């Protein structure tokens, strides 16, 4: 990227180019969520892994705790690496979103642990519904913070799933959870990652 002199008077297309540049850079600085796209994909896949383990592998009681702890460990390792790197992810938006997801993650973990210890985990539709609503809440809060319709759509998917599980059988509620995980986590995460890559490519083109 190089500076160029301002024509006198400045040309309209130069000014439009400046506005586009500002928009791209402001979005790059602020849209912290898109850097987290892989996390959504990872959690979606871990949900699938946990359910598959529960159904097909021995010691199904360990499926969710192990998968959730694995997810938390991966994120903590990533956060630790981030702290040592140069990424400025401490902006107020980034902190707000981290707070929302951290709180919801903590709430889900405590909820699942309490349900498992008290043997209420067997009430699968209600447990599934609660988790679906928790995740919808986190997506909705992020969508409000970022003013991002795609994430609002993800929230709608989770909340829609949460409502649906009350009207279907216990086995079908697992399917609802899997469908919501696919669209509200994996697909949404892939979309976020695609946006992130596209934005990076656009920036490179603009500044070459």
């Amino acid at each position: 990227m190089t500076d160029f002199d301002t024509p006198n008077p400045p040309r309209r297309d130069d000014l439009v180019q400046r506005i586009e540049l500002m928009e791209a850079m402001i979005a790059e600085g602020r849209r912290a969520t898109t850097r987290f796209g892989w996390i959504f994909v990872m959690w979606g896949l871990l949900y699938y892994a946990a359910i598959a383990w529960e159904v097909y592998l021995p010691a199904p009681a360990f499926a969710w705790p192990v998968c959730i702890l694995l997810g938390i460990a991966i994120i903590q390792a990533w956060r630790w690496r981030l702290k040592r790197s140069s990424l400025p992810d401490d902006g107020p938006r980034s902190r707000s979103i981290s707070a929302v997801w951290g709180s919801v993650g903590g709430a889900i973990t405590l909820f699942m642990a309490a349900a498992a210890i008290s043997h209420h985990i067997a009430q699968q539709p209600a447990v599934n519904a609660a988790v679906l609503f928790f995740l919808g809440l986190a997506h909705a809060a992020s969508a409000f913070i970022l003013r991002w319709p795609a994430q609002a759509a993800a929230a709608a998917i989770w909340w829609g799933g949460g409502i649906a599980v009350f009207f279907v059988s216990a086995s079908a509620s697992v399917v609802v959870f899997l469908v919501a995980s696919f669209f509200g986590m994996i697909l949404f995460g892939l979309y976020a990652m695609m946006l992130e890559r596209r934005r990076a490519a656009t920036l490179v083109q603009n500044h070459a």
Partner: protein
Amino acid sequence: MPEGLPELDPVVHGKLRLALLSLLVGVEEADFTWLRDKTGSTDGNLGAQMLKLEEAGYVAVQKRFSGRKPQTLYRMTPAGRKALATYVASLKRLLNGAL
């Protein structure tokens, strides 16, 4: 600049400097490496442009160590925010009929 047209701050108007200010406006602080990666500029060019912004009072610089690694952090100052806001207002005025 013809009479009646708003002046564009030349410090802000530089393409790389404008990109840097726009990046900094959305984050509390940013490391030199991150700014270089996001703008695709060279170390030399980025350093020179950051110095101009620093001299204008639009960014504040802080040097520290992250572990053993030296780190240069930039933060937008209130003057920088004001300059960017004024620049945007001037840009809008120019685009909305003045040009």
